[in-house]
Structure formats: C-alpha cells, structure tokens
C-alpha cells in the first residue's frame, strides 16, 4: 500500500509518501497508525473526536472515502491512499 501526503499534511509527516508492507484492514486503522507515527498535528488533522475530521480529504484509489464507507472503508495491499487538507482554487 502507498499512502501519499499533500500540502500542509506534508509538513506534519515530513515526507511525501509512505509505503506499507502490511495494509491495515480499514481506513480507521490506517489513520490511527499514521497518527501514532506522525504525532499530534497529524492526529488533529485526521480526526475530530472519534470521527473523520470534515476538513480532511482522503481518497482511496481516487475515490473520496465519503462516497465509500468513511473510516470503515476497507483497505487492501494494492490500494493508493491520498491525504489532503481542504484545498481549493480555480
């Protein structure tokens, strides 16, 4: 599994991507593991209490997890996960 970080999320992780040999079963498990690795700023960006922070955008293979099963979205080893803060422009 590849997890890619963008914009301010990169400043929390200090790296642009991370490859995981053993994919967590769900997005919740993945974000919990990443929060343990990267610390408080990442955890605050990812979670609002026990829920997904509404100001984070997470794509699994290009699909926003809000259209999948949110934190319960199942993950597999071949997945690419992209994590963004809210961004915009035009």
């Amino acid at each position, binding site marked *: 599994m590849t997890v*890619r970080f963008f914009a*301010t999320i990169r400043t929390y992780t200090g790296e642009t991507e991370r490859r995981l040999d053993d994919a967590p079963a769900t997005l919740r498990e993945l974000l919990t593991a990443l929060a343990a690795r990267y610390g408080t700023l990442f955890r605050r960006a990812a979670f609002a209490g026990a829920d997904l922070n*509404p100001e984070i*955008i997470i794509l699994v*293979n290009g699909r*926003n997890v809000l259209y999948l099963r949110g934190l319960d979205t199942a993950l597999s080893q071949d997945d690419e996960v992209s994590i963004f803060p*809210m961004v915009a*422009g*035009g």
Partner: protein
Amino acid sequence: MFGWTGTILRVDLTKGTITREATDPKLARDYLGARGLGGHILRSEVDPKTDSLGPDNKLVFAPGPFTGTFAPSAGRFNVVTKGPLNGVLAASNSGGSFGPELKYAGYDALIIEGKAAKPVYLWIKDDQIEIRDAAAIWGHNTLDTTDLVRAETDEDAKVSCIGPAGEHQALLACIMNEMHRAAGRTGVGAVMGSKNLKAIAVSGSGAVKVADPERFKAAVMKARKLIQAHPVGGAGLKAYGTDVLVNILNQVGALPTRNYQDGYFPTADKTGGESLAAKQLVRPKGCFSCIISCGRVTKVDNPAYAGYGEGPEYESAWGFGSDCGIDDLDAITKANFLCNEYGIDTISLGSTIACAMELFERGFITAKDTDGVQLTFGNVAAMVEMTRKAGEGEGFGAKLAQGSYRLAESYGHPEYSMTCKKQEMPAYDPRGVQGIGLNYATGNRGGCHVRGYTIAIEVLQNGAVMDPRITEGKAGLDITFQNLTAALDSAGACLFSTFGIGAPELAEMLSAVTGVEYSVDEFMKIGERIWNQERLWNLTQGYTTADDTLPERLLKDPIKTGPAKGEVNRLGEMLPEYYQLRGWDDKGVPSKAKLKELSLN
C-alpha cells in the same frame, strides 16, 4: 447613491469626446455593476451583429458596489464587450486595484466606444480626462507600458493595458492591470487593440459612500472572520496558491493531460503548489482589500528560464504543464511570465499549444508548419518558444494566438480543439467530474470554470459534497453556482471569498453598502437575471442547443489511465433537466414567463 458613485464616464475615441451621465438607480439595483451592469449597457447599446473588432463594438470597464470598500477582497472589476473569440456577451473579471481606483475617481463604469485614428492612452484623474498620444508606448510589453504610462502621468496611477498580443488583435489577448493581474478570457485585449487604445491610467481622490457604515462594518467583520477561519480562505490559498489543485485533481483522475487525451499525469506533483512554494515562491500577494492572498510572487533562477514575476495559477500550470505533457515547473513559470508580458490568456494558449502538439503527433501538421519546431508533447523548449511566438504574433505563433478552434479547423480537424463555444476549457476533466462538464457545456462565455465552480462541491468538499461520478442533482448544482457567481461577480466580490462566506453574507454586505435591502432570494434572482441576459445575447449570435455540448472526445473516449479510467461525461443525462430547471424550452430559449419573472426582454 451609496455603493455606486452615480456617474458613468463615456469616451468616444473616434470623435475624441468625453461625456458623463447619471447611473440609472433602477438598473444599478437590478444589475448591481461589473458583469451585470456592463452586460446591460452592452446589450442596450451594441448591435449583436456588430463586428467585435470594429469601431461599433464597445468596451466597458465596470467595478461593482463592493469595489473599493473594505469588504473582503473587494478589488474586482469586469471588462465587458462583444467577445471576439466567439461573439458572446463577454465579461472578463480581474482583481488588482484598478477597479477601486476607478470608483475613487468617481465612476461606476467607463464606456469606451469608437476607434482612435492612432495609438492613444487614456488618463483619468478624477474628473479630468485626457486622451493622450501613445506612439512612444505602442509596441511595449505590459510591464514597460505600465512604467511608461506612470512616468507620464502619476507614479501611483493604476494602469490597465494591452501588450503586443492585444496590439496584434490576437483573439486570445488579455487586458492586464497592475502588471500581473489579467482580465484574461474571451479576447477582450483584442477589442482594446482594435480601438488603438494602449492603456488606461486612473487616479482617484474620492471615496465610496456607504449607506449604513455601522451595519456594513459589522457585516464585513463577520465575513472576514468566516473567511479567515476557513481552512482554504484563511491559510491554504496563502500558503500554496491555486496551484495546490494540481495534485488533488490528478489524484481523482481529472487532470487533463496531453490535450485531454488522458486524465492522469504521473509526474504532476513536480508542477503543483507544493513544489512552487518550495522552489519559486518569493511571497504571497493579495489584491486590493484581500485577506486571502492567493497570488504568487515568483522567481526562477534556472538560467534557461530565469525570470521574476507573478504566477503561475493552477490553470496556467496545467495549460503549460500536464496538458502539454510537461512537468518542468521552471519552464511553465517562464511561459506564464511571457503571457503576462505579452498580454495573452494562459488557459487558452496552453490548451492551444497542446492542440498543436496533438495535430503534430498525428501528422496533420509538420515542422514545415511550425517554423521547424518539433512540436511534440513533453518538448519543454518548444512549448516556451511557441508561447513567445504567439505573443509576438510571429510565424506559426500567429495561428496559435487565434485559439485552438481556428487552428485545428484550418487543418481540417476541429475535433482536436478542446473548446466549448470556441473557448478553451480549463483544467478539470469532465469525464472524471460530471457536473463541471455540464457547466462547460452551458457556459455562456464558452469553456470556463469560474462561472459555475462545481468543483468546490464535487471534489473539494467545500461546505457540502456530491459524488463527482454521478449526474443526479448536477443540473441544480450548476444553476445555483452559475446564479450565485453572476451576482457576486456583479457586486464586485471575489469568487474566492466564497471559501468562507455565501449568499447570506454577500446579501447583507450589499444591503449595508447600498442602502437597498437585498434578501438572499433577491440576490440570487439578480444572478439568474444576469445569466439569462447573457443567454439572450448569445442566442442572437446564432448559438443553439447544439452548442451546449462538449468536445466529442469527452463524450465518447474514456479516460485511459489513472483513478477515473474508463469514465466519459454523461452530458445527456443532465442537460434536459438543466433547461427545465432554468425555465427554458427544449431549444434552450428562456420562456416568456421566465423573462417576465426576471424583468427581461
């Protein structure tokens, strides 16, 4: 009047006359200013069959009621004219500080008509207006022109001008103001060039009268707090600029690549806002009264593309980047600098070069056509050289400067022009994001994203969410965005203020500044009126439902790679509902009942 100055300035370049007239309070109330009021002036005064580059076309510079106040990001104005690229009721929106200065000089609109016998510029210092000789300025780029005009007028004057592209009447020409801000789309710079008008300098000593200062102050402070608290308006755009969008559009599979042949570009990250911030950003920059500061002051040290200026925005980084198969950010930024200096639209030119690259690779044009240049995708030096040539109007560049539709059509293959109503689409692939496709197809100035930015909801999760892959509900979404944007454009607000505030805050500020009570419904109704006004004009140009479409590629050829692989745009599922919800018949014509409801004829 409050919010409005109450005066419109009219300059006839043929006769050399300068007149003033009162702003009609009813028109101001119903059309606000900028795009709306300017559009009404044009529709009232210009024959739709007029040659857009002839003396009978008019060019209206119009700020809105917010412009020049301390409302958030209140530096906007519109340039309204019959657009030479495609004949539409063109309104091209710009920031900077020219619009506020025009208000301070005392004007709700500046109407330019006729054609000067020789190159001139206009010097507006409050109520003293001069038409001055521009022989010594003609031929200069936009940076030098601004400096030269200021040297002859006032070093603090705000200057709008054309570069060489406008002088050549290139159909992709912009009007630049304050050197780096562009009224960029629909070819408004060509109209200015056709009138032999090189520049307008303005200096005003007045102020904008506010109807209820305490109410306005409260409304503005509330709006500012909301924008500053928003992750995008408050911090994101300042940190990374609009170019931050490269990665998220690529990761959803909707970053148009190699002239829209694909929707995914594997090395796009090299061209995104994160890379720009790390390598080129000198400082962020805002327009007048801006608390967002999305602008990028940038510097390129690479000797091959060295330069200093502003940008690129996301659209420019895409046009000269993935759409040309290029991931060299230094070259992209150089091309952007050149466009600012020549005064030419980065979106349309980038897309037109991409179109030429596809024509070249398919063998429809050869190096004989392209002045010996191997114009293949990914050829960085060729992209920069073609940008220069287009700005100069030199050789093959002169064809590029007329846009991709005319280019591709001239070689017998208009199907490779990625345009709607002959204007190039911007940087969101409608196969990966359904609603933006409907917006492009129904866009009343052609391919355009800033008049119905459904991306905010379909991709960016801004306030609400709708799945980009579905078509249900997208007609209503598009109409809401189109109407809201028409109203806020006409008020003189910046689109990016909606990353924090919406119609309720805009209506409250508008009521406080003008003294006219606008409910949210009335504010949105103004937007609907303006949208329909533009539609009525376009119908006079011969546009029909057949033109409310997308390039066939986007309807039939699936995206080849990336997350949206296999997707096409399903416009047919959305368009009938769009007409129905608009109150238009199946030919896309507004019904009599709708026109009566909107007080239009």
